[in-house]
């Protein structure tokens, strides 16, 4: 039987405000354990939380950028449970009146654009981190992350594959980076995903029983978890079993999930309104102020790249798929008259080098302007495209500007007709068979011969001139 996979996500994103949600401690990552803490974020007796207004602003930004309606009146609630990383033994979150509701993000899915509903976005505080000490004699707690502001983005059960879930998370991450509310660094835990998943026979209307997998901290592991859990659920059903509603833990190492607790064992969080905080009021004026301050979002930017820069849709989509990449492109494109060539460089060699080095677009070690200068060098015929690729590699290594590299390495195009004619002669002499083939009408051999000649010059030959000289020489032989 064919099955349909139903996926809904809860995405926790750390906001990049300077200070924590209820105190003035820094939100910086990587501090020595328990140095970014105070009586408030460690829940000492008698202290009180005071809401950081920036957190509300950032969450509203996220809501507006994902087409949510913003609640004029919302409140904060206590979610009660005992765990050593939660110093008050309750997390301040939002229960029945979240800040943002009923939004959506359009993703590119198989078969075109698909709209994924966002049920709600609410604000809450992060917890600390348990660490087992090296001697395994006990557990240590680092409270630095306590009180770092989070938004939780909850989607509808709208995704039908791991790929759609991946597209959603990438798109959400991109939007949040665009509006500058989070760095969304999954490796630092600033974006974490819970997956709700069920399966049903294709054509069936009712949803199957779902399971939840918590705290997936990379897109790769989310994709694997979805695929693995879907497979497990289908097998259970195929073998005549039933899915139990439960929370499962995905073991990335072993590639399987384990049951953590069933519905019966689920926590009763005893939510109730946080009496230490006042309701959150976002009036029309503030909301519009925030809306006006939003930068251009990925979708609008993509459309602009097509109309303003004349880029193909493919280029525009990939470039705007990462804010850093798009920023880099635009900074380079603006400085030369050949945006398509800039795009080619960025999507081709720049991306390849980044991939090889395991770097992100924000790690490019030279200014975007260097790319526009590189394009100009090619356009002016100072260097060939082949040499330009070489120059780019050196730019990554030495962080020097392209002109300096061309000069130092002597990479300028050889346009000396005499010298090139010599090269051509030599190539024809050494490739008797290819020349014969060419004469027999196998035109594609010409390319091979150009390549050989180019190789002779270390790639520096002026290609137009080289072509002309070679063609001339071959024709000559024909006579």
């Amino acid at each position, binding site marked *: 039987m064919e099955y349909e996979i139903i996926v809904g996500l809860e995405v926790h994103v750390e906001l990049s405000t300077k200070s924590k949600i209820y105190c003035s401690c820094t939100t910086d990552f990587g501090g020595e354990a328990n140095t970014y803490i105070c*009586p408030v974020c460690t829940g000492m007796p*008698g202290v009180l939380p005071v809401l950081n207004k920036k957190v509300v602003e950032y969450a509203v930004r996220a809501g507006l950028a994902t087409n949510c309606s913003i609640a004029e009146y919302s409140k904060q609630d*206590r979610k*009660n449970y005992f765990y050593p990383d939660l*110093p008050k033994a309750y997390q301040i979150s939002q229960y029945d009146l979240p800040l943002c509701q009923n939004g959506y993000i359009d993703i590119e899915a198989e078969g075109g654009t698909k709209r994924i509903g966002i049920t709600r976005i609410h604000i809450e505080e992060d917890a600390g981190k348990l660490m087992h000490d090296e001697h395994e004699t006990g557990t240590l707690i680092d409270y630095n992350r306590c009180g770092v502001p989070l938004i939780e983005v909850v989607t509808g059960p709208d995704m039908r594959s791991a790929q759609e879930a991946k597209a959603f998370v990438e798109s959400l991450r991109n939007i949040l980076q665009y509006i500058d509310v989070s760095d969304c660094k999954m490796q630092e835990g600033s974006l974490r995903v819970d997956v709700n998943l069920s399966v049903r026979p294709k054509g069936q209307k009712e949803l199957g029983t779902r399971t939840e997998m918590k705290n997936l901290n990379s897109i790769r592991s989310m994709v694997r978890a979805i695929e693995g859990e879907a497979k497990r659920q289908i097998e259970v059903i195929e073998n005549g079993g039933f899915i139990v509603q439960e929370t499962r833990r995905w073991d990335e190492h072993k590639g399987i999930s384990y049951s953590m607790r069933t519905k019966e064992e689920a926590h009763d969080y005893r939510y109730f309104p946080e009496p230490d905080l006042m309701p959150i009021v976002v009036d029309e004026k503030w909301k519009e102020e925030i809306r006006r301050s939003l930068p251009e979002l990925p979708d609008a930017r993509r459309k602009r790249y097509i109309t303003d820069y004349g880029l193909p849709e493919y280029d525009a989509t990939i470039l705007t798929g990462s804010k850093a990449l798009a920023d880099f492109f635009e900074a380079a494109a603006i400085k030369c008259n050949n945006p398509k060539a800039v795009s080619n460089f960025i999507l081709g060699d720049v991306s390849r080098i980044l991939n090889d080095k395991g770097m992100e677009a924000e790690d490019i070690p030279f200014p975007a302007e260097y790319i526009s200068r590189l394009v100009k060098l090619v356009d002016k015929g100072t260097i060939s495209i082949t040499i330009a690729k070489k120059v780019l590699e050196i730019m990554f290594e030495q962080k020097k500007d392209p002109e300096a590299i061309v000069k130092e390495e002597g990479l300028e195009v050889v346009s000396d007709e005499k010298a090139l004619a010599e090269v051509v002669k030599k190539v024809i002499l050494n490739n008797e068979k290819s020349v014969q083939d060419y004469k027999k009408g196998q035109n594609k051999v010409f390319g091979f011969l150009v390549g050989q000649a180019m190789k002779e010059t270390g790639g520096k030959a002026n290609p137009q001139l080289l072509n002309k000289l070679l063609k001339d020489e071959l024709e000559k032989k024909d006579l």
Partner: protein
Amino acid sequence: MELYQLTVHEMSDLIKRKKISAVELAQSVLDRINAVDEKIGSYITVLGDEALKRAKKVQERIDKGEVKSPLAGIPMALKDNICTENVKTTCASKMLDNFIPPYDATVSKKLYNEDTVLLGKLNMDEFAMGASTENSYYKVTRNPWDLDRVPGGSSGGSAAAVAAGMAGFALGSDTGGSIRQPASFCGVVGMKPTYGVVSRFGLIAFASSMDQIGPLTKDVTDCAIVLNAITGYDPMDSTSADVKYPDYSKALINDVKGFKIGIPKEYIDNEANPEVKKAVLDVAETLKNLGALVEEFSLPLTCYAVPAYYIISSAEASSNLSRYDGIKYGYRAKEYTDLMDLYMKTRSEGFGVEVKRRILLGTYALSSGYYDEYYKKALQVRTLIKNDFKEAFEKYDVLIGPAAPTTAYKIGEKKEKPLEMYLGDIYTVSVNIAGLPALTIPCGFDTNRLPIGLQLIGKPFDESTLLRVAYTFEQNTEFHKIRARI
């Protein structure tokens, strides 16, 4: 009269006129503590030398003319749920027996800024849960008027200390009557201000939506002086009221002509003991004679106040007290097998019976399946009670009634009868539910020579009218001048 028996304004007057020094005054009150606290048990922590050192510094500033506050050099003490930097703050609980806060409560800071001298920290019912100060991990506090009787609670240590001359004034906290009822039992003045008027920052939370710090003093004038020092907007407390605060001493006017005063029938009906009832009606007569209009009216929802209060306050407490888990500070069980065992043993051993009872009650009331029936219902009652008062205050400037149905009862009399003790809160809890200001002043004595307290309830943020009516009554009567003999 001995120095320790004086009111704050009398002490202040002598200091200003250089008749006495802050050091002499502190010494006199410390001597008094040494002499009688063994019998009464008001203090958990006494700061002897530190207090004298502090008094010396204050006196130097007084001598240089650097201080103006009417509280400069006044020896005072704080209920032990108000955080004091570097001074142990226990909430009278084994759980916090070793807890020394690295920060001051806002009120502590404010009082230091007024150049007061902290003498120590006062006994209370554990985590402010109780009405007799019998629920302290450390000791029972005794009523200075009769050592066999309770001082009331939970601010029993505060009330007894002021009544026995062991502090110029004290601060207590009031979640359901915990300032007003002990003030009544000990014959002193106790004010629970409007919710939000005194910062809760540094007050160890019992029920956040009702907790409020207030003064216990020897007379109404002192109450106004202390109120001036501790009220005000605090950005560290989101529930703090950002309003314009009056000078409360300007409310001390001996005149109530034309004031409309209501007596809720439900406050003098069945529950009130006849002697208490008579004392309140006598007050009504006195005020009438002074030109006020006094009449009875009905607050029909009074009977729902106690159940609503115990649900809301216990629910909040169950959450507020969850942080005492043995992980970060405070008591931790000596032996445990795993995390769950650590939690269970720590909390079983660290909390007393009454605290555990409230945690269970509150946890139950918030549980899924019961939330709507209990917590939500209680919140609805809360709204109705607020409306009841709102209506009443369209007609009256002030409401009066007893602070408690009885005078001080015997130690042990109600300890094993929690429900009976809860019902003793019947006249005080509505005020906390509605967030109103209320003031207790002495208004008579019963046949056992035990003080009876009158409660005055005011409109939100209208502490001034309460003070004025109370001051007028005080100026025309002698009850506040009678001190307990120990």
